[in-house]
């Protein structure tokens, strides 16, 4: 049997046509044991205030659309339950460090450009035709990158990263983790092409290992680890050029 209780959900509201700053609006939402924060937002939209704007799609922590700040912590709202906050209220804000378009919807254009900059696709040494067969890999080789490939681009890690908040040029956790995902793949030969992003002013050295990104990641990607692996790679790349003829190229 499900009991229905009433919880207060406080949402940040921002209308770009009329507001210069956001404000908060409270709603009294009836909820049952199994209701997520996202379902709370959907209840508001369906029954209390149709103008509330937020993104969502899959409802099962796969699509990465519904990220928001829940009581100040970056969370997937579909992955967070109202019962865990009751009897206190839940305060929902758009993800930190991103420009807010309207209410809880943020503008992720900046991230998409960064994602593109790390060449997030396999760059094989020699292209194979389908007739030549597949690229083979051992389970251990797969283990080297698998967790990094679990990223769903939900941007919770960017909302957790104060370095990104302070410097929007910083490539940031998810893009650098995906960069490492391809560099660590035995089928990939594009490391040299991605080195410029790693070594650059806004590459891995922009990270100070706050490591909150890894804490909030809903998929266990551990972006802080991917970034700090590449501090080693970047250091090697820097020093090896003095030892190797023609700058190690």
């Amino acid at each position, binding site marked *: 049997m499900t009991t229905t209780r009433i919880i207060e959900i406080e949402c940040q509201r921002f209308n*770009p*046509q009329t507001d210069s700053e*956001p404000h908060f609006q409270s709603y009294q939402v009836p909820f049952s044991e199994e209701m997520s924060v996202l379902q709370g937002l959907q209840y508001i939209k369906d029954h209390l205030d149709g103008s509330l704007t937020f993104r969502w799609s899959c409802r099962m922590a796969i699509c990465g659309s519904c990220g928001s700040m829940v009581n100040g912590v970056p969370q997937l709202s579909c992955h967070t339950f109202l019962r865990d906050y009751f009897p206190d209220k839940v305060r929902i804000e758009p993800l930190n*460090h991103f*420009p*807010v378009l309207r209410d809880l919807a943020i503008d992720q254009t900046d991230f998409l450009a960064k994602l593109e900059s790390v060449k997030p696709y396999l760059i094989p040494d020699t292209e194979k035709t389908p007739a030549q067969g597949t690229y083979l890999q051992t389970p251990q080789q797969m283990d080297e990158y698998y967790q990094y490939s679990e990223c769903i681009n939900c941007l919770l890690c960017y909302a957790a990263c*104060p370095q990104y*908040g302070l410097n929007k040029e910083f490539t940031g956790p998810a893009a650098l983790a995906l960069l490492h995902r391809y560099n660590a793949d035995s089928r990939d030969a594009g490391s040299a092409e991605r080195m410029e992003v790693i070594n650059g002013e806004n590459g891995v050295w922009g990270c100070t*290992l706050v490591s909150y990104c890894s804490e909030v990641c809903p998929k266990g990607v*551990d972006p802080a680890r991917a970034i700090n692996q590449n501090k080693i790679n970047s250091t090697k790349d820097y020093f090896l050029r003095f030892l190797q003829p023609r700058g190690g190229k």
Partner: protein
Amino acid sequence: MPAPNLLNRYTRPMEGWWRRNPFYLWYMLREASCVFIIAYALVLLCGLYRLSQGEAAFNGWLAALATPRSIAFHGITAMMVLYHAWTWFKVMPKTLPFIHIGGKRMPDAAIVTSGLAAAVVLSALLFVLVWSGRS
């Protein structure tokens, strides 16, 4: 009616960001603990310099260490060093490539624990060595 400004964006300012979440506070404390470690290194270096100046100078430095203010400083510094060491080992797995033992990946907790255990054993060993070498 003027056209609505759909390009209007709001970005939250960063002022006081480190006070917004306890995780950031602990991070700032980790960074700040370095200052105490530098200060402690300078005090030791000062002792070395006083030693080079002769016995009287060194005894003066030892006397300065025994003042309540100095003891308070060393107490706080010891706590800061312990916290710094703890955070150092806590993030150690993030700085290492995956370690495979017998075909299995070493869990992060095992890396942290072995780092901490090594630090405790080595510190105890150093302490016993120095303590037993006292005249």
